[in-house]
């Protein structure tokens, strides 16, 4: 059984629950002090996903319908690591996103931008033995939201990840390099540490782009916890 031990996050690298610039946090964030949770077997373990859980093309968001979705075709890839830099193997990575016009296929999205009949915007995959994952999708559009007057979300892809233990669980968002909306976005800026914010911005990766076909963006994720898998050949 795989287990992971989690320690407190480095200061400034995680958002506070109560962050008034993000209006929805005000009524939904706890105010009482959090209670320290000792790690028992419940905390150190987590769900294990079988390779059969993923079907062919679950990681290709461009082939889920009769035609290709509109927008800039991209690859998104990266590694999922633990706090020792070791690969998180067989980690479930789930993504969802808006289409190229900035519209989600969701009943509560009333942004008057077109839906794309060829794009659902959902994908999932399991990492390989090196902790690597890969998706093919399209570049999502920016879109307005109701947080404040003329608020716009920067382009992003939602990520949900599972590590070895349930406390390694992470839901985050991947952003794109050079997007001027990031500086204006309260969700992005809820992470106090500037370097920690930048780690949520993917990197243009021309080595993995495919000429005359698609650009590539690299996005590595570090999950909380120290996995119990034995050290491999490297020093220590």
């Amino acid at each position, binding site marked *: 059984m795989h287990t992971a031990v989690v320690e407190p*996050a480095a200061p400034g*690298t995680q958002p506070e629950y109560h962050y008034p610039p993000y209006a929805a946090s005000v009524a939904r*964030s706890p105010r009482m002090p959090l209670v320290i949770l*000792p790690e028992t077997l419940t905390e150190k373990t987590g769900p294990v996903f079988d390779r059969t859980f993923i079907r062919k093309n679950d990681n290709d968001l461009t082939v889920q319908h009769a035609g290709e979705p509109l927008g800039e075709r991209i690859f998104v890839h990266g590694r999922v690591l633990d706090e020792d830099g070791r690969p998180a193997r067989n980690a479930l990575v789930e993504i969802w996103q808006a289409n190229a016009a900035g519209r989600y296929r969701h009943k509560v999205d009333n942004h008057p931008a077109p839906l794309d009949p060829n794009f659902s915007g*959902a994908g999932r995959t399991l990492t390989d033995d090196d902790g690597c994952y890969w998706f093919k999708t399209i570049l999502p559009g920016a879109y307005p939201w109701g947080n404040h007057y003329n608020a716009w979300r920067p382009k992003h892809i939602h990520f949900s990840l599972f590590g070895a233990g349930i406390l390694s669980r992470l839901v985050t968002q991947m952003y794109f390099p050079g997007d001027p909306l990031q500086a204006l976005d309260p969700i*992005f800026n*809820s992470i106090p540490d500037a370097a920690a914010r930048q780690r949520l911005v993917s990197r243009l990766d021309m080595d993995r782009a495919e000429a005359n076909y698609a650009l590539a963006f690299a996005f590595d994720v*570090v*999950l909380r916890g120290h996995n119990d898998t034995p050290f491999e050949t490297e020093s220590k």
Partner: protein
Amino acid sequence: MKENPQFIPSGSQTVGPFFTIGLDYMANRVPNVAAAAPGTVEISGRVLDSTGNPVRDALLEFWTSQSAAHQDGFPGGFYRIRTGDDGRYCVSLQKPESGPYPGGGRQAPHLLVLVFCRGLLRNLVTRVYFGHEPTNDADPILLSVDSERRPTLIAQRISGRSDAFEWNIVLQGADETVFFAW
């Protein structure tokens, strides 16, 4: 100090209002009735905000280490549920047994619960225990919580049913659920 400062955990961001697009395929799965084993219980309740309003777009994930068997390809012991328009959720799950506590003692039957919703920049972590469970009185983690707030972690048996429990999650306010730092 961290040995490897370059491997600082990635920052959390809210699950937002549109998570069903990517996460619903594993949510609200109804167990096969024929396969329902003895010990299956139902936990239902509402997720509420500071004003008592229902949180209609919450995602809950329940975890117990005690059920390792896969079910229809889905991992055992893991239950993902979302709330509906009234903020209500309902989950059927295998009630865990009591288990060991590190360093001695026993833990009462419980599950770990993760709470995600629009407005939560990080998920919350809590536990749910079961009412009318004698081992609750000696559970080291329940005992570490102020006695006044301890009931927020205990699902109450629905009158007339031994296999159905009610448990609300209150994100903020006088009846705020105990959430854990981790």
